[in-house]
């Protein structure tokens, strides 16, 4: 088991000596995922609210499709984005394949349905509760959506955190569209896969520890947000 303990010790050393290669990867991971979460939230949150408040034809089907998209295998998303961005694809002209932008696109596609679906459920429940009151108070459509988004903000924050958690740990799609290119598109998950394959356990575990810390922080944040909601220390 010496490989195991050596790897562990080496990992901490890399982290605490601020190894530039390690931190470059961490930084790119956060950059890509945070950008993707912001874009997915800008699309997903209002979409969820809109689906909850408006009645229209095929609404049920739109919601069913949304829920189905949530279960999309990331590898398949990666494949489609790859095909779209490759030189022969419809978006090939932009030259985005194997760039951080391609990874952001793939992550946005993976987590937008998740964020939209969670926010739809949240807003729908709150709307059922508030409906009579807001109608009675003669609130306009915009005022209604604003009240629902504001009063549901904790649950909505949970939705974006869940999206972040899913995106930061994703590997299949990122590998395909990013290409795991050193100093360009190598992120935490793809680097771990590569370094493990090469037997470079110290580096892989260093990255793994960072990823675990990020995941724990995210889940802790979700927990705390949920707790303040229940304890109503608003």
């Amino acid at each position: 088991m010496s490989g195991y303990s050596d790897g562990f010790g080496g990992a901490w050393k890399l982290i605490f000596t601020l190894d530039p290669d390690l931190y470059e990867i961490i930084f790119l991971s956060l950059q890509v995922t945070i950008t993707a979460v912001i874009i997915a939230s800008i699309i997903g949150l209002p979409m969820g609210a809109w689906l909850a408040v408006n009645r229209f034809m095929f609404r049920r089907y739109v919601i069913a499709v949304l829920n189905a998209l949530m279960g999309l295998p990331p590898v398949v998303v990666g494949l489609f984005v790859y095909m779209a961005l490759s030189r022969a694809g419809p978006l090939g002209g932009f030259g985005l394949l194997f760039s951080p932008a391609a990874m952001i696109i793939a992550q946005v596609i993976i987590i937008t349905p998740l964020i939209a679906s969670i926010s739809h459920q949240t807003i729908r429940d709150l709307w059922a509760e508030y409906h009579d009151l807001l109608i009675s108070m003669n609130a306009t459509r915009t005022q209604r959506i604003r009240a629902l988004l504001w009063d549901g903000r904790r649950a909505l924050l949970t939705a974006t955190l869940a999206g972040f958690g899913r995106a930061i740990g994703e590997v299949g799609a990122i590998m395909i569209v990013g290409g795991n290119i050193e100093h360009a598109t190598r992120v935490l998950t793809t680097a771990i896969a590569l370094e493990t394959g090469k037997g470079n356990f110290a580096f892989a575990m260093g990255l793994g520890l960072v990823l675990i810390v990020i995941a724990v922080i995210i889940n802790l944040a979700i927990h705390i947000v949920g707790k303040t909601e229940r304890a109503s220390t608003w």
Partner: protein
Amino acid sequence: MVSILPLVLTDATAHMRGKKLVGPVSLTLSPKGFTMVIGPNGAGKTTLLRLMHGLQRCTKGQVEWAVPAAQARDRQGFVFQSPIMMRRNVADSLAYPLRLRGMSKAEAQEKVAKCAGNFGLSDLLENVAPLLSGGEKQKLSLARALITEPEILFLDEPCANLDGRATREIEHILQQVQARGTRLVMSTHDMGQARRLAQDVIFLMQGKVHEHAAAESFFSAPTTAEAKAFINGDIVE
């Protein structure tokens, strides 16, 4: 400003998925007074109040205010049987209807402080509305509905889930509100409460108005057998 009253219902009927809930109802609510809507469970009290307020669609007949419906809306209030509490503190809950009408934050704050004083809510301003007691919630609902100074206030069994003390407090507030000239329309299944507060009574059964009369004559000389039985406390359905 021209009054939104009287409210005139002409064969007003409410259906839900083909099933008739209430109606046809024809009656007039004069500009002044305290109307009690009474009747057994399921008689249609809630539906009738919602129909008047516009929360329930009128599928046949008419519900007409003295001004166009769009103008009448902002000058009515509604208190629900189970209070709808926004996930906000008491101060923000009270400010909300004022802010909806475009009032500035400072102006709203001032009005909230004054209103909270009138309703004995001053010590609760920072409390979270959904965590208040039942009585406090209903007082907040009442204050929130009245803070915009509506011409008419609908109340759907506001004391149904309250104990005697909270009920007395609400009734006291309502008498003051009425004395200041606000038109009140309230449903109840509590005969005692109807006797204490009513100036006129609408007696509903199975979605139909069986009687609409001044309180004294209704309680002393009901004209229908059902009303007589109901007043006597017999079980009617």
